């Protein structure tokens, strides 16, 4: 039997979508977008320190997938993890505070952008080590199974990360043990300065699924409806015990690799073209207006609400106290 990955299409119509669901898609995507735009701005203004990687242009992926998760499901994310964290339901204020290195942050300022984690919403951590998360997520999936729970774990990774050996070890283990885990590759075409096809031996990373005996599925990662529906089916199956699957979401990294990246490895035109033609948020807006399932005012209302929420988060983070130097020695051992 031939097992090339399946390519999923966008639903032909979204007329039967629940209004609240549509609103939540937009709200989440906009929240991420504004959050990240603020991060860029504040970083360049010197307010936010460290290394910061934004998710602009990839919002539909995280949103479409996370909408299918329960709050007790687990996710494991990467250095580019703000979007996932927001979509999983983390509180923006504490999140922004962490990114500012402030005391009320999720990690009390010890982690920062690359080490965001919010265990209260099942977000098991970003990771500064590319490909560091696969095996942790596999272990979380193992634990839920051993504990007799029906939680699902989702691990996110980039095209660049797909080449790390940890992917192979985790995928094989998850498949050999039939663990409830979804591997989500966000193929945004770039691994830092490197076009993924120059270092990745296959065009479709989902091709690798077959080598583990798991289903491989490809979807347009900038189409929130397609991502949502594809992930829904996969996550339902996994929750029922089908074992792991690999979902590749084709997307594009609109921002630089990190905020402040001179981007000497690609042209502004390339990026602008994608942004103009394939921005997941514009595409959502056009489609819902086109199919008349939402109105411009509804969209604007959400936008406004989100704008306010993010601004409050920024203000909160700015005003928040820094950790005291003495806290350096806390949280090392239990």
């Amino acid at each position, binding site marked *: 039997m031939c097992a090339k990955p399946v390519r999923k299409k966008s639903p032909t119509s979204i007329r039967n979508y629940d209004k609240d669901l549509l609103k939540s898609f937009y709200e989440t995507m906009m929240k991420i977008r504004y959050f990240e735009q603020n991060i860029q701005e504040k970083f360049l203004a010197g307010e936010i320190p460290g290394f910061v990687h934004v998710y602009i242009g990839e919002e539909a992926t995280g949103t479409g997938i996370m909408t299918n998760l329960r709050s007790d499901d*687990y996710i*494991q994310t990467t250095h580019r993890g703000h979007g996932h964290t927001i979509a999983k339901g983390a509180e923006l204020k504490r999140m922004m505070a962490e990114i500012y290195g402030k005391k009320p*942050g*999720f*990690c*009390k*300022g*010890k*982690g920062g952008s690359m*080490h965001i*984690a*919010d*265990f209260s919403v099942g977000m*098991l*951590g970003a*990771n*500064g*080590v590319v490909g*560091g998360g*696969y*095996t*942790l*997520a*596999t*272990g*979380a*999936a*193992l*634990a*839920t199974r*051993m*504990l007799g729970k029906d939680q699902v774990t989702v691990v996110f990774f980039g095209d660049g990360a797909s080449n790390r*050996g*940890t992917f192979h*070890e*985790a995928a*094989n*283990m998850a498949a*050999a043990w039939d663990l409830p885990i979804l591997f989500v590759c966000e193929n945004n075409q770039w691994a830092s300065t490197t076009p993924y096809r120059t270092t990745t031996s296959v065009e479709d990373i989902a091709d690798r699924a077959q080598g583990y005996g798991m289903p491989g599925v490809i979807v347009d990662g900038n189409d929130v409806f397609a991502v949502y529906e594809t992930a829904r089916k996969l996550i339902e199956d996994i929750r029922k015990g089908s074992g792991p699957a690999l979902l590749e979401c084709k997307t594009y990294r609109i921002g630089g690799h990190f905020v402040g990246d001179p981007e000497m490895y690609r042209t502004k035109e390339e990026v602008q073209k994608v942004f103009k033609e394939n921005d997941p948020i514009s595409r959502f807006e056009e489609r819902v207006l086109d199919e008349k399932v939402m109105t411009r005012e509804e969209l604007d209302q959400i936008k406004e609400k989100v704008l306010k929420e993010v601004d409050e988060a920024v203000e909160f983070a700015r005003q928040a106290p820094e950790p005291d130097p003495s806290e350096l020695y*806390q*949280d*090392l*051992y*239990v």
Partner: protein
Amino acid sequence: MREITFSQATLEAMDEEMSRDETVFVMGEDIARQGGIFGQFKGLPQKFGFDRVKDTPITETAIVGAGVGAALAGMRPVVDMHFADFMGVCMDEIFNQMAKIHYMFGGQKTVPVVLRAPDGLINQAAAQHSQSLEAWFMHVPGLKVVIPSNPADAKGLLKSAIRDDNPVLFFEHKALFRMSGPVPEEEYLTPIGKAKVVREGKDVTLVSYSLCFNTCLKAAEMLDKEGISVECVDLRTISPIDKNTILESVAKTTRLAVVHEAVKQGGVGAEISAIVAEEAIDYLDAPIVRVGAPFTPVPFAKPLEQAYRITPEKVADAIRKMF
């Protein structure tokens, strides 16, 4: 007191802790079907099931990483490394993930994982199956590192390690597994972070751990006959180090020697020596002596391995020169 082997002692520890707490499980390569290379898992799958005593793929990064992830999701995994030599494969999972998660995430989650790592020289196993790597891990904040020298401590420390909410590395010397020794029948825990003065003496403090500690005891007996009274301190834990026990002993004896099987350069001996040179130099009546392996990989051929090994004679020689 009854005597059992080191291997049995660790087996009892596993059995008791797995019985006590359903979230404790163990995974590793080739541990279930045959009971572990040193018999250290024998019978456990029959008692607890192959789900709680898991044979894994040959994937050290996935085993340790999955241990960490399972801990984050509510389990208390014990992970067997097969041989400590393979810890390089999962070094990132150990030092960048397991060790840092509690701190880096601001104390949100604990990471109760135990890594069991059989180490040391045995049977001319050569360069990649004979190493003692514990020193690396004392340089990693967030880990505890335990390294018993006898069955009783092995049992008590393994139980403590499993109950500890921090990640603990448990180094067990391959040559110790067959060693017999007295082990209490009633339940007990040996505290992590406490060294033990096993043999009192007044002329020199001999600090060691693991198999080598037994070598030191033999050297101490040899020296006793020559009129040198050796106090033998078994570190048992190398991180956090029990400074006080060492400093007190040195204050009494005025001399310090540190012995380990790992190569001398950059070894645990350096840290012990540096602590004493920093905090108790005025007590000292002699240079601090370190005995460790020569600075080479472990060679295969018998005469070379023999030259490489730490023996009671070598330890005694080094100490004689202090007087």
